């Protein structure tokens, strides 16, 4: 929203930059004008009109050049000396700058949009794969697009469910990981704590130290062999231990280890004094962890945790080796049908990019919502109303501090 306002102001109010940036727009427009027209171009019929538009843009470029030279030669007193800064001239310049944008838009629609439309129309009408890059992509998406869509859906499912499952497993595991022997623990608790902590350490080391591709293979074939030994047939096994299930298990278990380390980092970043204070009041290690340290630790970890979803969207592509029908597998399938590698992998890259961008945008909104301060309670707003009566004891500092924290928050982003 803020950026929109900035652009608006840039367009409307700031005279000094009108020439600078609209001349760039005019250049783009002129470049479109020099491109050849597609079969669907609507300007082809009104050639004279297009020539007029072209020369209008050129004239604008010339005027802009003069204005910029004037500015360079009269750096100090440009405002007073330049004919471009007279009120009437300013008004005219603004109107003309909008005309430049409009003309460029018309040329953009004629060349780029209508050009693309005609490429699509041509490609759809073909009965064999066209040779041009865009046409070929359109042709293949028309014929095999549903495979890609299916694959993208599977990828999203793997990433979303995998990350969610991993989050809960990571919370359990990080509890084991950060256990410390407390004085009042009996031998059994001590054994459990030591065992849990060591287990979490070993798990994290093994999972983070081996490639997910190998993990996927191991998990899939282990599950397969175990079920085979119970006497099930291959098709029965396929019903419960499908490649999708094996893939989901792999990505969940893999992500758990990374998320656990992220959570541990967040928890260790909480000032240990708060834990000490909680313990000094008589809370047990567990109570201090649950009530004080953990909520703050998870909050610290949220940005890095949400990044894990983005990582999983991308990393799920290695699951195609065990035959999970994800986006990568689907792309390979389509390549196998049409034998056009570069075009299809560009499509796959674009789809992955869209997915990760949407995911990080959503997660950004989510994180923002989670880290907002709790809505001020009634007595807090009462407090600001009584600033005058408690002047000097810190009410004014309250708002000052709040602002300072706002500032910090902005810095972090």
């Amino acid at each position: 929203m803020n950026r929109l306002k900035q652009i608006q102001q840039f367009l409307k109010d700031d005279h000094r930059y009108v020439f600078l940036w609209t001349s760039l727009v005019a250049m783009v427009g002129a470049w479109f004008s020099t491109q050849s027209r597609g079969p669907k171009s609507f300007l082809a019929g009104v050639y004279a009109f297009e020539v007029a538009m072209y020369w209008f843009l050129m004239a604008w470029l010339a005027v802009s050049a003069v204005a910029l030279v004037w500015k360079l030669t009269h750096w100090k007193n440009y405002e007073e000396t330049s004919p471009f800064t007279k009120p009437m001239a300013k008004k005219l310049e603004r109107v003309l700058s909008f005309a430049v944008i409009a003309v460029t838009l018309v040329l953009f629609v004629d060349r780029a949009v209508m050009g693309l439309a005609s490429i699509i129309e041509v490609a759809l009408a073909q009965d064999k794969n066209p040779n041009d890059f865009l046409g070929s992509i359109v042709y293949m998406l028309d014929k095999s697009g549903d495979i890609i869509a299916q694959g993208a859906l599977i990828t999203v499912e793997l990433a979303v469910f995998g990350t969610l499952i991993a989050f809960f497993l990571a919370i359990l595991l990080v509890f084991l990981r950060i256990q410390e022997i407390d004085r009042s623990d009996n031998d059994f608790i001590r054994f459990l704590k030591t065992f849990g902590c060591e287990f979490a350490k070993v798990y994290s080391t093994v999972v983070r130290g081996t490639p997910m591709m190998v993990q996927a293979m191991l998990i899939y074939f282990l599950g397969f062999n175990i079920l085979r030994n119970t006497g099930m047939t291959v098709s029965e096994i396929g019903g419960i231990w499908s490649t999708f299930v094996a893939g989901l298990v792999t990505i969940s278990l893999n992500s758990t280890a990374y998320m656990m380390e992220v959570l541990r980092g967040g928890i260790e970043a909480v000032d240990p004094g708060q834990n000490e204070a909680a313990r000094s009041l008589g809370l047990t290690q567990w109570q201090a962890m649950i009530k004080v340290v953990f909520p703050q630790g998870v909050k610290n970890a949220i940005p890095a945790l949400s990044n894990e979803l983005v990582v999983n969207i991308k990393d799920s592509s290695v699951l195609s080796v065990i035959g999970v029908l994800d986006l990568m597998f689907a792309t390979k399938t389509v390549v196998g049908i049409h034998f056009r590698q570069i075009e299809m992998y560009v499509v796959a890259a674009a789809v992955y990019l869209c997915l990760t961008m949407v995911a990080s945008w959503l997660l950004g909104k989510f994180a923002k919502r989670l880290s907002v301060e709790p809505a001020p309670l009634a007595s807090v707003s009462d407090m600001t109303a009584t600033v005058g009566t408690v002047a000097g004891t810190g009410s004014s500092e309250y708002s000052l501090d709040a602002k300072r924290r706002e500032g910090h928050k902005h810095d972090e982003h």
Partner: protein
Amino acid sequence: MMNTNERGPLIKVEGLRKSFGSHLVLKDINFEVRQGEVVTIIGASGSGKSTLLRCMNLLETPDSGHIWFHGEDLAAERVNINRLRQDIGMVFQSFNLFNNMNVLDNCTLAPVTTKRTNKEEAERRARTNIESVGLSEFIAAPVTSLSGGQKQRVAIARALCMEPELMLFDEPTSALDPEIVGEVLNVMRDLALGGMTMVVVTHEMAFAKSVSDRVVFMDQGVIAEEGSPEQIFGNPQLPRTREFLARYLED
């Protein structure tokens, strides 16, 4: 074993030793605090006074020695330290408030979680204590929005909400700006006048002089000298006590 009558010590430290690595911080400390007594511990940085205080509720584990409280030895292996700590309040130099909560929740968390009282009673008690440290209007404010002096007063209220028998203060004003030290010391003075048993590690000599019943001077891990404030400040026996006080009274 332990003398628990009215006149006996509330907490008694015997032969306490503590080292960090090869550095011996506390060398055979013997020390006791009677019911209702206000003891200040003074001494140079690194003399072991904070460590002694932190040993008294086992935030630091002593290497050897005994800490008798309620007839139990805090330093013994597998003592139920969580229950004993409920009767020993502690105020830290860096406040250590729970940053994920507001002022009221900071004060009610421990009484409710340790099942000392139910929620209503805990809130009632918290309101009383928050009022007594003069912060009623901040009861719902997030603690991160408070100034240092306000934070420390909340920390005192939080400790009081457990209705402890003993309060430990670990340099409670050292992290504060000079002009707001007074607001915290006033709260502590009121507490002392109210009969609370207190052990205060501090560099505020004027406070030590006027409020405490007994002053303990620590130097290099031992209690070098102890006595009434008049004795310690008026007529110190040891040269090193004189030297330390001279340095402080210069300022």
